[in-house]
């Protein structure tokens, strides 16, 4: 890029430095205008991030004039729309954590195994064919997954566990797990592929089998990249909305039992938005508070991911 500057200057001999060519003047102006337009476009993302923060914070502040922060963090009931209103975020956070945990216990082992298989065992042809097909799993609209969880997975699970209610966290969590498997497998596979071959060769020369090489050499070596795959999966699961609003029931429930219905932060926001709440009411503010809590949670995990990536970064020449 600096190169361009040099060449533009070189194209104009010094003896002509004072002469102004109207064509060149116009061209320079045009270049400046275009650069400004492109810069403005790039700035949009900054503006959006700050608008999100500004809106969420400014709509949440009035909420905390009604509700003490300590109640918000410790009350065990979340019933902002009832006569006897309680504003404890814990039941919603609990639901979010529970669904995320179930989703991750499906997605992380399965995704990692798939990635190890694709990168270490599959032939290049199968790898290149199966990877995009697996990514289709992430392209399916989430509302379709919600339908699948409620209408197909729950009845299947009810055959195994007859006492399972129609709305439950388990089936929502499992389906969410299937949904985020491609994020894990795709990024993990990329990370494994970027481990240099001499590590594989070295390990095998020491007599290790392929499985041993994969688990004890390649997995640790690629962990920096793999950790960012896991973190992406976590943020997807935390923010997932439609599957839980359709299949997990909408009742805030402070429980760690996956066989019960529960509501997540996101499901609560959807539930309230479907009604017609007046702008400025406490119920309206409560969805912004819930959104802010979710955003902070996601940011914390992303920062943690940033730390992991730095901590386990390995560089190879």
């Amino acid at each position: 890029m600096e190169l361009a500057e040099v060449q533009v200057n070189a194209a104009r001999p010094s003896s002509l430095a004072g002469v102004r060519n109207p064509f060149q003047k116009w061209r320079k102006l045009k270049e400046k205008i275009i650069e400004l337009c492109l810069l403005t476009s790039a700035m949009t993302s900054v503006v959006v991030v700050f608008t999100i923060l500004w809106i969420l914070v400014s709509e949440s502040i009035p909420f905390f004039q009604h509700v003490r922060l300590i109640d918000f963090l410790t009350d065990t009931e979340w019933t902002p729309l009832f006569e006897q209103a309680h504003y404890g975020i814990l039941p919603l956070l609990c639901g979010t954590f529970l669904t995320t945990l179930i989703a991750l216990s499906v997605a992380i082992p399965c995704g990692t195994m798939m990635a190890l298989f694709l990168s270490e065992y599959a032939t290049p042809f199968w790898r290149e064919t199966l990877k995009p097909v697996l990514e289709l799993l992430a392209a399916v609209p989430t509302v379709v997954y919600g339908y699948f969880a409620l209408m197909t997975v729950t009845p299947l699970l009810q055959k195994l566990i007859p006492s399972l209610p129609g709305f439950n966290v388990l089936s929502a969590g499992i389906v969410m797990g299937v949904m985020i498997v491609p994020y894990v497998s795709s990024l993990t596979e990329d990370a494994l592929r970027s481990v240099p071959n001499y590590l594989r060769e070295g390990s095998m020369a020491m007599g290790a089998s392929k499985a041993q090489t994969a688990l004890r050499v390649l997995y640790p070596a690629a962990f920096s990249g793999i950790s960012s795959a896991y973190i992406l999966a976590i943020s997807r699961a935390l923010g997932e909305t439609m599957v839980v609003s359709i299949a997990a029931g909408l009742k805030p429930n402070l429980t760690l039992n996956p066989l019960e219905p529960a509501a997540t932060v996101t499901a609560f926001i959807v539930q309230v938005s479907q009604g017609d709440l007046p702008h400025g009411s406490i119920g309206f503010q409560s969805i912004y508070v819930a959104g802010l809590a979710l955003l902070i949670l996601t940011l914390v995990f992303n920062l943690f991911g940033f730390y992991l990536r730095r901590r386990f970064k390995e560089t190879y020449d």
Partner: protein
Amino acid sequence: MIEVSNLTIRKWIDFLFQIVGLLILFLALVTLLSLILDLSTKGLHRIDWAFMTHFPSRFPERAGILSAWVGSLLVILLTSFFVIPLGIAAGIYLEEYAPKNFFSTFIELNIVNLAGIPSITFGLMALGFFVYTLNFGQSILTAGLTLSLLVLPIIIVTTREAIRTIPQTIREAAFGLGASRWQVIQHHVLPYSSGGILTGVIIALSRAIGETAPLITIGALTFIAFLPPNPLGTDQNFYDWIFSPFTVLPIQMFNWVSRPQSEFHVNAAATGLILLLLTLVLNAVAIFIRFRFRRRIKW
């Protein structure tokens, strides 16, 4: 007692490891397939001409998705109008212009953050900003803007990746012939990266079609028995339709799933099948384009 050597055990473990991997992979593919089959068996018989040309109704057998697919189409049209130029321009700036300084790193950090923000948060922002601050109402315009911001990072990232694969020598050759920076981009960088950019655009739009949560948050209606005003009608302004209330396919499906009557679930399955096929076809096209371009261009 039979002696089993260490090597045999390790070979068995290795074999087992491979089988487990293959099995999980197979399971994932089966899930995808059963998803398609499940929706087809439940909903395929419901899809006919009447289903496409009727408004939603209290009677499940008379209900259709006319307002939903028209709404989806218009919202996606508006989304593409905003996000395609914006995303590509931002990608070009970051790859071709941005100096390596604190400011550029700051922009990049923001894009990464934007991609990690839960989609429902975009809906909350849109409700507070577009609906109540700018007074756009719960309209197609608000929906288009919201989805644009949501999928913006996808287009920026894929544009940058596509541009980055073009070797520096191409740019140097063009500069050497006296081309200005924009001429290099217009005549060389953009044409050569168009395949990658197009892939990104298609994937972003397919994501936007299936997105539900942020549109529920901004207040898309679930029961709409009219179409947005026809822009070519005589007694309206051309742009009246962008301020019209709307519904989209995923929201219509969500509404039908949430009802207790199982007749509505059939409608939901039919809508879901249409949505699923739409996104799968778009993604298949994207994969095909990526494949074609990777083959044709060799630097």
